């Protein structure tokens, strides 16, 4: 997997949380600018070309959602991930309405944040008009609703098809369980049981059983990755 270096603007007023994100992002090979209030964020976001912005929901001077609106009004279309300590079920809608691209509630694991940031920056590369998605010898025909691996048809249930489509759209990226719940099932809460794991292992059975090189990998402690190279 090619190492993509992102330039990320972190807007967070809590120093410890900001340091945690900054350090993690730098260790993953990314470059980080950090500001601690909405006004500075607006200035930086319009001044510099960032790959992604991480915006805390509650900020001094200019509130996070207002800042997002202002950034969008200034014509900046950089993907924005909103971080919030507020409840996820109802606040999420407000966050996305204000112009955010993704919403992550605090506390979060760093791997979740990283996976979502990578998904956000990569999402822009894939055009929605693509009708064929592929990864290695795996191919998905979106119009014909058919999946083949090395030319052999793979029979999938409707939900399995959606799951695989999501994984293919995020091929070579780590996707977390909550990303799958949100992207495939549209649930914005975490069930106590690891329901996703069983769905993945069933899909893996169908994709990888008769082939030597596995495509669907488990990334320990984080989630899964669909990739032709381990």
């Amino acid at each position, binding site marked *: 997997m090619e190492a993509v270096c992102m330039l990320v603007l972190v807007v967070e007023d809590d120093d410890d949380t900001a340091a945690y994100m900054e350090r993690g992002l730098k260790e993953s090979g990314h470059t980080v600018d950090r500001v601690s209030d909405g006004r500075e964020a607006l200035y930086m976001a319009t001044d510099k070309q960032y790959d992604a912005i991480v915006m805390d929901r509650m900020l001094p001077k200019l509130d996070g959602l207002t800042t997002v609106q202002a950034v969008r009004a200034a014509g900046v279309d950089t993907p924005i991930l909103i971080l919030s300590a507020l*409840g996820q*079920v109802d606040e999420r809608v407000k966050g996305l309405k204000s112009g955010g691209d993704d919403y992550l509630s605090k*506390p979060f694991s760093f791997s979740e944040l990283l996976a979502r940031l990578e998904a956000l920056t990569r999402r822009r590369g894939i055009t929605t008009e693509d009708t064929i998605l592929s990864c290695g010898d795996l191919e998905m025909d979106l119009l014909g609703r058919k999946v083949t691996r090395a030319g052999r048809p793979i029979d999938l249930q409707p939900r399995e098809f959606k799951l695989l489509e999501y994984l293919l759209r995020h091929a070579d990226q780590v996707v977390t369980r909550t990303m799958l719940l949100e992207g495939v099932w549209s649930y914005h*809460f975490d*069930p*106590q*049981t690891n*329901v996703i794991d*069983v769905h993945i292992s069933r899909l893996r059975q169908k994709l990888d059983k008769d082939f030597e090189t596995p495509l669907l990998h488990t990334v320990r402690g984080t989630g899964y990755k669909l990739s032709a190279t381990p």
Partner: protein
Amino acid sequence: MSPSLRRLTNTATFRLALGYMALFGASAVLLLSFIWWTTAGVIERQVGETVEAELRGLADQYRTEGPRGLIQAIDRRSSRGAGDPDGIYLLTDPLGRRVAGNIDTWPAGVQTDGQWTRLEVFRADVERRRLIGARAFALGGGYRLLVGRDMVALGSFQAVLLEALIWGVGVTLVLGLISGIFMSRRLLARVEAIGSTSREIMEGDLSKRIALDGSDDEFDRLAQNLNRMLERIEALMGEMRLVTDSLAHDLRSPLTRLRGGLDMALRAPSAERDRAIAQAIAQADAVLATFTALIEISRIEAGIGRSEMVPLDLADSLRDIVELYQPVAEEKGLSVTLDAVSAAPMHGSPQLLALALSNLLDNAVKYCRAGDIIALSLGAEGEGAESHWVLTIADTGPGIPVADRDRVFERFVRLDESRHAPGSGLGLSLVAAIAKLHGGTVTLEDNAPGLRLVWRLSVHSSNAALQ
């Protein structure tokens, strides 16, 4: 006004007593004015009428018998020992000189118009100035006649009566004040009893109750209502204490384990350290999940999710969540069946309904053992405004004893058998809160064997939730 006097005048006792006194005083004055008018007033009026009649009689005599006859009549009436000793007579000639009568000169200010006049004159016969009431009349030929009555006797009667009346009013006022103080003291003593009990309660003794006197009057009913309110408050306080106690317990134990684990990790070799840190993170996540659930419940109970109510198909929501859980249940050797109407339109929050259903399926999967069956169904019940969707989840798992069935909806209640299973003990509380938000009820029944959970959701839940 001195502070102590102001304190006195500010009391309801004082104001009530004053009110009583004013009422008593006013009625006494009214009553006694009536007595005055019917006694002293009437006597004076009668005297006035007698005098008028006499004056007329004398005038007639003057007309028929001339001045001589009149003079004789006056002399006869005003002589001592004969006639009325209180009678006053005076006849003057055109020059104003006395012709007959028992006073010397025509008193100043007496007009010959026949009006009743009170005045003081010098009575020649008793040689004293006396208070009289009199009428005067002009006779023909410049003669003037005055007839009156000595009022001293009536005046002293009136004075006695007035004194009696003043005393009467005074005594009534005092009686009014005393009875006012007594009555208001009695009433206010009961108010004060309620007040002093409330003060004790405010000082922290929530078990105190206001005493009733058994009369079932307004005060008893007030006290009963207050007591009922106190019972409700005490129950709520108890619930809250239970929640905080449970919170303390359910958060303290994982936090203690977390702290212990990190302490160990600090001194452990690096390989073990990683494992200890991973465990610590898992424990922190458990604590955070508890917090999230608690906050979610409070927000739902406060009606936060109401704003996101949209038209949705409950049957679809149910099919989706069953599809999500089917693999994990099958993995555990459970079979899941679903028998639902094709469409169940209603108003609701899709995320919250899914969250509730996910909690119920989490529980079913968690407590059932291999071979158990989880049967879900969704149907309609009732008609019109009363119509409900009835969602049941029946399993053949261990079930819940009858005695515990209501308790499991309380926050943090985990039955002893499940205390060591993962979970926060908040799942069913969350379900109950979401059910209530959607105008529904959740009941637990015996599935013999196992547990059957019945969730009735109002078809018109958006209306129900607004009420």
